[in-house]
Structures are given as structure tokens and as C-alpha cells.
């Protein structure tokens, strides 16, 4: 995408009817599949404004004063949850964190019941992470609050994809035409899925790479339900000429389920290494949603090397989530 410096100026200071009200159509953030490019651009601009706030000595603005954000996590998470929490606090929202053990899902405790309780407590925004794909969609149909998907099953992780886009834009002029290689457990990765939607909408040239047992079928062909991407099982083909190389976390259970023979063989065939990156674009950046299994997905030296932007992704996560809170509450501010 091409965002000129003038439009990247913080929008927070304009007083008259802000243009984002027309562009922004979302009550909920469930995935990027229903985002327009203009909405994604708006998120990028708003994130930049938030980023600026984060660089101030006092990182707190009153934008969300009086609003209540509840995080409802059915899966363990440290960085995503803290990122939402910090984001909400920076905007002066009241925040409450609920952790539900994923075993209660199987015990038949109803998600709808839990949500109704949270809503009765006055939540304006509910941030959900859930092991089952579609849980945030279900939630969005039954509550008045805005739902933000913080990762659901193998389905989507839109806020991660947005922070990834923002991180790329900090290093590259435009997403359009950018060569992005996503390497790892594509089929089970909500991060990959949302990134594929976001990147292809913004005009990137996406290649996914994994062992064939971890690749979804049919996405290399044009069809109406999922973006068409390049697919390869050869990591060198994927990395050749890439501007961005993104690794994904490999769950160790994939080996137990017979999808890969061993972690050792996986690392030998699919680890992102210095040698392999030699064929990438000169200014390639290396990304990973974290936490990294070092030396399995990415060589330790790369994780901590100069091309790695993994820590920036974490910082940007807070700014993106602030931007989304801001946009979801209608950019309502009394600064």
C-alpha cells in the first residue's frame, strides 16, 4: 500500500467530522476477510498516531475513559493479552481480564452464557481468544458489545496480521508488490490465514511454504473463498527474492499426529537460516508471531540478528490494538 507522509499524520487532532467515520464500517473485528483496503489503510494511519503517543513520556490519553474492555481468554497467552491490556490502559479504559480454562469448553459451559454475564457487567468491547474456530463470530451474533478476535482455533488472528502489516510498512515503502514468504504450519495457523487475507488485499505477492501435510489444498488456484497464493514445499524457492520472510510456530503435537516425521527433519528442511536468507532480497526482514521455537523454525542467530523485527512486532502490537479500540469506539475522544 502507498501511504503518503501527509496522510500518515496523526488524525487524532482534527476536530470536524473525521473521514474515518465513513471509511470504517466494522462493529466487530473477526477476520480481515471482510476488510476493505481503505479500512486497512485507516488502521495503519491510526496505528501511526498511536505509536506517536507511545513515544511520549506520559503514554496515557483519555480517549477511552469510561469505556470497559474485557479480555476473555480460553487459551493461554502472555504477549497478546498483555498487548491488549496495555493498549486499553494507555487509552484510559477500564479493563478486566477473564481467563477460562479450555477444559470448561468441553464440559459444556456455554460461551453465550459467559458472554451474557460479561455484557451484564457493562463491557463495551470484548476481546476473545478461543481454541475453537468461529467462537468470536458466534459471540458477535449474540452480544451488543464489540467483539475483537484475539485468535480463534485455526481460523483467524486479525490483530496479529494488522500489526504485521504495520511492521512491514515501517521497513518497506509499500505492501503492494512486496514479496512475502510465509514458512511453517500454514494449515493450522490463524496467523498465516489472516496475513494471507491482509497481504493479498493490499497487493503483496505471497508465497506459502510448508511440508505438504501442513499445506491447505486448493489455495494455489483461483476460487471465490480464499485468496490465491503461491504454494511450495521448497524453502529455497520460497525465500528467493523475498522482501519479508515470516516464520510460524510449529506445535510439537504435529509430529505426534504423524504430520511430520520428526522435529529434527522439519528443522533440517524448513528452518530459516542465514544461508537460506542469502538468496532473499538484500534488505529482507524476518518476522515471527512468537513465541519462537529457536533453531526449529528460525535459527537462533537469525532471531537475534539484524534482519529480525520480532521485537518490533511486539511493540507495534500495542499501537495496533490501541488503534482498533479507538476505531471501534467511533473515534470518540475528548482530549
Amino acid at each position: 500500500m502507498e501511504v503518503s507522509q501527509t496522510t500518515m499524520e496523526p488524525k487524532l487532532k482534527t476536530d470536524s467530522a473525521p473521514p474515518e467515520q465513513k471509511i470504517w464500517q466494522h462493529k466487530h473485528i473477526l477476520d480481515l476477510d471482510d476488510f476493505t483496503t481503505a479500512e486497512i489503510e485507516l488502521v495503519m494511519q491510526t496505528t501511526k498516531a498511536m505509536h506517536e503517543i507511545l513515544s511520549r513520556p506520559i503514554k496515557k490519553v483519555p480517549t477511552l475513559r469510561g469505556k470497559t474492555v474485557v479480555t476473555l481468554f480460553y487459551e493461554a497467552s502472555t504477549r497478546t493479552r498483555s498487548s491488549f491490556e496495555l493498549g486499553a490502559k494507555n487509552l484510559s479504559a477500564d479493563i478486566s481480564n477473564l481467563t477460562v480454562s479450555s477444559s470448561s469448553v468441553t464440559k459444556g459451559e456455554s460461551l453465550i452464557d459467559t458472554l451474557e454475564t460479561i455484557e451484564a457487567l457493562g463491557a463495551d468491547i470484548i476481546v476473545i481468544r478461543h481454541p475453537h474456530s468461529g467462537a468470536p463470530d458466534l459471540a458477535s451474533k449474540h452480544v451488543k458489545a464489540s467483539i475483537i478476535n484475539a485468535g480463534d482455533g485455526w481460523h483467524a488472528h486479525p490483530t496479529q496480521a494488522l500489526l504485521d502489516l504495520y511492521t512491514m510498512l515501517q521497513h518497506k515503502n509499500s505492501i503492494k508488490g512486496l514479496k512475502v514468504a510465509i514458512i511453517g504450519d500454514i494449515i493450522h495457523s490463524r496467523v498465516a490465514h489472516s496475513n494471507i487475507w491482509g497481504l493479498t488485499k493490499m497487493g503483496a505477492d505471497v508465497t506459502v511454504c510448508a511440508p505438504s501435510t501442513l499445506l491447505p489444498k486448493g489455495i494455489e488456484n483461483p476460487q471465490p473463498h480464499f485468496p490465491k497464493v503461491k504454494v511450495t514445499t521448497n524453502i529455497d524457492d520460497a525465500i528467493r527474492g523475498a522482501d519479508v520472510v515470516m516464520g510460524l510456530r510449529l506445535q510439537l503435537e504435529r509430529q505426534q499426529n504423524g504430520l511430520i516425521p520428526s522435529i529434527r527433519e522439519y528443522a533440517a528442511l524448513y528452518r530459516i537460516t542465514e544461508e537460506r536468507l542469502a538468496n532473499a532480497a538484500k534488505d529482507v526482514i524476518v518476522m515471527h508471531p512468537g513465541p519462537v521455537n529457536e533453531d526449529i523454525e528460525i535459527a537462533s542467530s537469525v532471531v537475534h540478528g539484524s534482519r529480525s523485527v520480532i521485537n518490533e512486532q511486539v511493540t507495534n502490537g500495542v499501537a495496533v490494538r490501541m488503534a482498533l479500540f479507538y476505531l471501534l469506539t467511533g473515534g470518540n475522544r475528548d482530549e
Partner: protein
Amino acid sequence: MNKAMLIKGGRIIDPSQKLDIIGDLLIVDGKIKEIAPAVQNIPEDCGSLDAKGMIVCPGFIDFHCHLRQPGFEEKETISTGSKAAAKGGFTTICCMPNTNPAIDNKATVDFIKATAAADSCIRVLPIGCITRGRNGKELADMGEMVEAGIVAVSDDGSTIANSRIMKQALEYSLIFNIPICDHCEDIDLFEGGQINEGIMATRLGLKGIPNAAEENIVARDIALAKLTGAGVHICHISTEGAVDLVRSAKKDGVKISAEVTPHHLTMTEEAVLGFDTNAKVNPPLRSQKDVEALILGLKDGTIDMIATDHAPHTDNEKLREFATAPFGISGFETALGSLMKLVHNGDIDINLMISKLTEAPAQIIGNNFGKLGTLTQGETADITIFDPNKEWTVNVNEFSSKGKNNPLNGQKLKGKVKATVFGGEIVYKDNSMEPGA
């Protein structure tokens, strides 16, 4: 018994007699008395129904449904299920044994029959289990259950994974000459599957169920049917490959039959977009290519009959995360309207549709329960009257079934049952149905 009733001026279609005429049908004492362009000898005090512009045909027979009683009465009972079936034009329904307790012995069969006699407005024929408790390990007492009145055996919902047990079940069934109905699913390939394996599974992040999960077991069952000489019936066939397997087995003379559901004939995996748990069904809704193969199979005789696999669930069970919601569609009341889409689109002929809902299932049931699926003079008057052109909007809140789980809710269908007659009695009548002039 009601004395006499005249159904006037409808298009009477009875594939069992190759009959397709405009005329009157006279019922006397619960039996078909006469069919003629204009019945002359009308008894005194004869009731009447005006069927102008409507189709009059044998009552539909559903070889595969779930009535949930005993054990899951919150989902459906024999009473509510039979009412829903009558509303859908069915006069005979065969209920699957995955109840609690399962229908695996004479006592449970007796319970179903007694409850149906008391509560059902139509004929309910129980299907017994193949194995005790549907455990796939020991054969259930087939002979005792046949004596008590089962129409077939099935462990529906569970495939008999052990091929030796399946072989023995087929061999044993030869004593009674009843079909073994198999829900064909390779449990290892299926494991944890939610929807069709394909692009929708990728998009929604749900575990896919490959076509081969069905085809593996269809292929095995064909081999076992060939080996034993026994008959096997393939439940709710859903894939192109399975249709090909059955077609070629029939050519080889294997005793095999197959059924297909209205939803597999008319919907694809796209119906689950937005995580609609009401479109979560097993086998899953497949691709357009599979749907086309099913229609072709229905037309060329590979697929013998249409069965609903009516599978009611409570709202709460379906109002869950997709992966934790149960499989199944409450299908009695939309079966005809869905199938008529195929007729209106020119995919199948109306006579073929009626044949697959009447004569064909009657054939597999046999004559143990009377002569079914026909309007032959002297036989029991089980009759469905429907308006092929009536447009209506599906509203699950108006369902007679307790199960409101139907993905067609809110959609327009063209074709509606107007009256259902069972043994000469009107068991369902649409408000708009007028007495004959």
C-alpha cells in the same frame, strides 16, 4: 374409520403404476377405491378435497430419520417427529436406533411400536441395531428384533469399523433377508472432522472430512457384500467417488442400494460460511462437483431413493462453537421444497422425484408392513397432496419438529405439502386447503 373421501381434480402421479393423469381419487374405508378422470359413483356423505393444480401421489416414505425417543426427548419425540413428518408429506418413516437405550433388542422395538401406536399420526417402522449398544463388537439379536417388527438394521452414526464384524453381520442378515444399512465413515480419516475437506475448511479453519472417509467404507462394504451375497444399503451417500463405486458394484450384480438426502442434493459446503452450525451435518455438505454426481446417480438409478436423515437437535446444542455443536439437520419439513428446486431447475423430472420418495423405498421395505408407496386399488390410502408451485418462506419457528436446526431458515422454497392422508385419514392439512366443490 371415515367412510369416504374424494380428492378432486389433481394431477395423480403414481410411479408404481406408471400413472400420471389429471383426475379424481376416491377413498373408501381407508383404501384406494378408484382413480379416474372423473369418478362417477360417489358415495353419500363423501368428504372431499379440491386438488386442482396440485400433485396427488402415494404418501412419501422416509427410510432414514431420527425420532430421538427414547432418551433424547428434548430433541424430538415420536409424537412431534411424526407430526413434522406428516407436515412434510411422509406417511411412513423408518427411525434409526441411536436412541438411549439403543434399539438393539425386542423390548426397545416393542417400546417404539407401542409409543408409535399411541402417539404417532403416521406409520413408524423401527430400524434395529446391527451390534449391541451400537458398540461395533457383538451382533444384536437380529432375529428377535425382526420378529418384533424392525424393517432393517443399522448402527447409524457409527460405522462398524471392524471388517470381520461387518462381514459376520452381513452373513447373519441372510437368514432374515433384511438390509444392513451402513453409515460409511472411516473413523481414522474422519477424526475430529467438522466440514468437507476443501477450501471452506481452509477459510474457516475447521478440520476437513475427506471424501475418502466415505469412499473407503463404501468400497469395503461392496467387497463384503460380494463376498457374503448379502445386501448392503449405503446411507446418505455424499461423494462423487462413492456414487461411482456403487454404480460399478451394481453393474457387477452386487446386492447394494443407496439413499441420498435432500440437503446433499441441493446444498454445498458454502452453506457453512459464517459458521452456521445448522449446516453442520454428517456426512458434510460437499462440493458442487459432488452434488452434480449425486443428481446424476439419482437419475441413472445408481442411487435408489431419497431419505431425509432428519436429525433434530435443541437450539442450545446448535448455539455453540462450531466444533462442539452436534451434526444434523431437522429436515422433514423442508424435504419437498428443497427437492422441488431440482424439479423447477430441470435437473430431475417430477415423476422421478416422486418415485424416489415412494415406490423405491417401498421396494426395500418389502411387503411385511402392507403394500406401501402405491395408489393401487384396494391398498391402504396413504397419500400426499402438494402444490408444486407454492412459494413460501421457511420459518423454523413454525416447525412441528422440536428441532429448529435447519440452514434453510428464512429462505424461499417453491413447492409445499398441502395435505397428507394416512390410511384414509387427513393427518395434516395446510390452512389454505379447501374442501372440493
